[in-house]
């Protein structure tokens, strides 16, 4: 069974002049547990909108998203919040770390909304995850004192700390130089494979996209297979 399926998903917005702008149209996509999928596209092609839909942050205006066997339309707002916290980890282009909070405190954030056991063991779980991404020595450092690569590693640790089924990475190397970006991508790929989480990378960089098992291109709101990825 797929981890999730998008069936004829469309997303449009109403503009101030009352006209309609179609951002996504007829998107079909199925991703299995542990798969690594990349989606490439130019700016304005609808990549971020698709990411928001996959991350249960937004709802389609047409079509259906089936998440873990259940249609999204059947989930309440609270159920979606909980499913997002439990099953999805985000890695953002601009890292989106909480300023003024240490690497450890940032990594702890998702555990504040986890169950009882993980809440009370939050420090040890977050510490282990930061050690796993090579930041065991930087636990107390705030984002202001970390390099871009280190900040993205903290973001990866935060995304993985609750053991999600799906990692959504939005331009994860967009704010990094080529060498650091390649190292971060390798880390993301390694850690997601080791934990069995599916990884969807949204990028405009063909080299990053090539690391995935399957690659799709998003063009004017339509999703089409680009080629078979690295596994092929």
């Amino acid at each position: 069974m797929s981890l999730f399926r998008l069936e004829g998903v469309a997303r449009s917005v109403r503009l101030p002049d009352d006209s309609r702008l179609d951002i996504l149209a007829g998107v079909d996509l199925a991703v299995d547990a542990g798969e690594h999928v990349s989606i490439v596209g130019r700016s304005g092609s609808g990549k971020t909108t698709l990411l928001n839909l996959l991350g249960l942050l937004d709802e389609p205006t047409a079509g259906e998203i089936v998440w873990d066997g259940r249609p999204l339309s059947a989930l309440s707002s609270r159920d979606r919040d909980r499913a997002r916290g439990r099953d999805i980890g985000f890695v953002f282009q601009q890292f989106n770390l909480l300023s003024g909070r240490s690497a450890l405190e940032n990594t702890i954030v998702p555990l504040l909304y986890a169950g009882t056991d993980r809440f009370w063991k939050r420090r040890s779980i977050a510490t282990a995850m930061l050690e796993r991404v090579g930041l065991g020595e930087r636990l107390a450092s705030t984002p202001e004192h970390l390099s871009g690569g280190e900040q993205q590693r903290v973001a990866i640790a935060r995304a993985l700390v609750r053991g999600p089924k799906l990692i959504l990475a939005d331009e994860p190397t967009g704010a990094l130089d080529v060498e650091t970006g390649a190292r971060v991508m390798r880390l993301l790929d390694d850690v997601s494979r080791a934990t069995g989480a599916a990884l969807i990378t949204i990028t405009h960089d063909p080299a990053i996209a090539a690391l995935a098992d399957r690659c799709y291109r998003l063009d004017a709101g339509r999703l089409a297979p680009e080629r078979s990825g690295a596994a092929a």
Partner: protein
Amino acid sequence: MNRLRESFTTVAATVIEGWNELRAQRTRVLMSLIGVGLAVAAITGAVAAGSIAEQSIREGEERGSGRAASLSVNAFDDNGPTDPVLLAERLEPLVERFGIDYHSRRVYGEPLALESPSGLLRTESAAVDPAWGAMRRIPVEHGRWFTERDERMLAPAVLVDEIAWENLGSPALGEHPTVRIQGERSATAEIVGVVASQNSSREWSAGTVYLLVDDYLELAPPLDPMISSVETSLWVPEAEAEALADAIRAELRAQYPVTISVQVERNDPAAWGGGAATGLLWLQLGLVGVASIVLLLAALSLVNITMVTVRHRVREIGIRRAFGATGRRVFVGVVMESVVGTAFAGVIGVAIAVLALQNPWVRELIGDGIVEPPPFPIGAAVVGLLVAVGVGAVAGVLPALVAVRVRVIEAIRF
């Protein structure tokens, strides 16, 4: 059990989240919390100072008229009070029979002359029985009050007030100082203690000397009803006061001829409604009113700052929601930030009030001459903390509603 554990975890996580937020936003919220803390200190301090001042006023009143319930016993005919010695003799078996532990006479007699280094000192006299000290909360500053053993001593024991003590050269009590009293007869008395002066003017008074009634009667000229008067007081449990007064009155009336009127009446402040302490309530209410206005302004400032803080934290709220925070959790989290902040300010405010009221200068100012200083009233501290938490909750609701309306997608791109 699991549900309970889960609920506890949620509460703990929300409080920790609130506290972490406060730490991160400390500069922004500090200024508004200073206002909350000071207002809580003012409210708590006003309530607590009120109870100390009330105790001070009550003690002052009790020194003058007796503690609850004090019965004053008098027997007089058309010419005035009858023989006080006879009254004491008739009262003695009744006091024994009714099990009254505290009873004393107080003779308002003639001045006594004390030999001092600077010459003869004409002091006021206060002749009492040993129980008088406890019955009227006489504050002993140095040494001790009379004991029953003093009644059996050959040399009279005396206490002097601070004015008389200074006039006598402030002799050290550890050296058992004596003073020569000149009266109808003269005697050398040992000064066993110094009491706080009831007379505020050193200019007009050479002080007061306290001595036991029997010693006074030995030294002073025979009591002249035109000059001297004798007050006989009983200190009894409040609940039994009325019944005891009726019984003692009836017994004494039976022993006197009908031409003599016997009065046994309560004369302590509690019997006539508490006196000056009730006036204090208005002062206390006024202080609490002013503090409440300060608190309201501080709360409005807190709402304002929290609103600004929430608007600055739109992206952060979006991130938290992306990682699983539900709308309810965000709402409670923002309210909790406010509550944790004001509770912290409240604790500081209560601590300021406690420290201020422990200050000897403040104690002296509001509780002058207090014998039994009341402990810091727990009720005042609880009121202060509840007010702080309540203000935090109310001030947090509006920003929390704004926080919940944040759209996650826009927030993350913010």
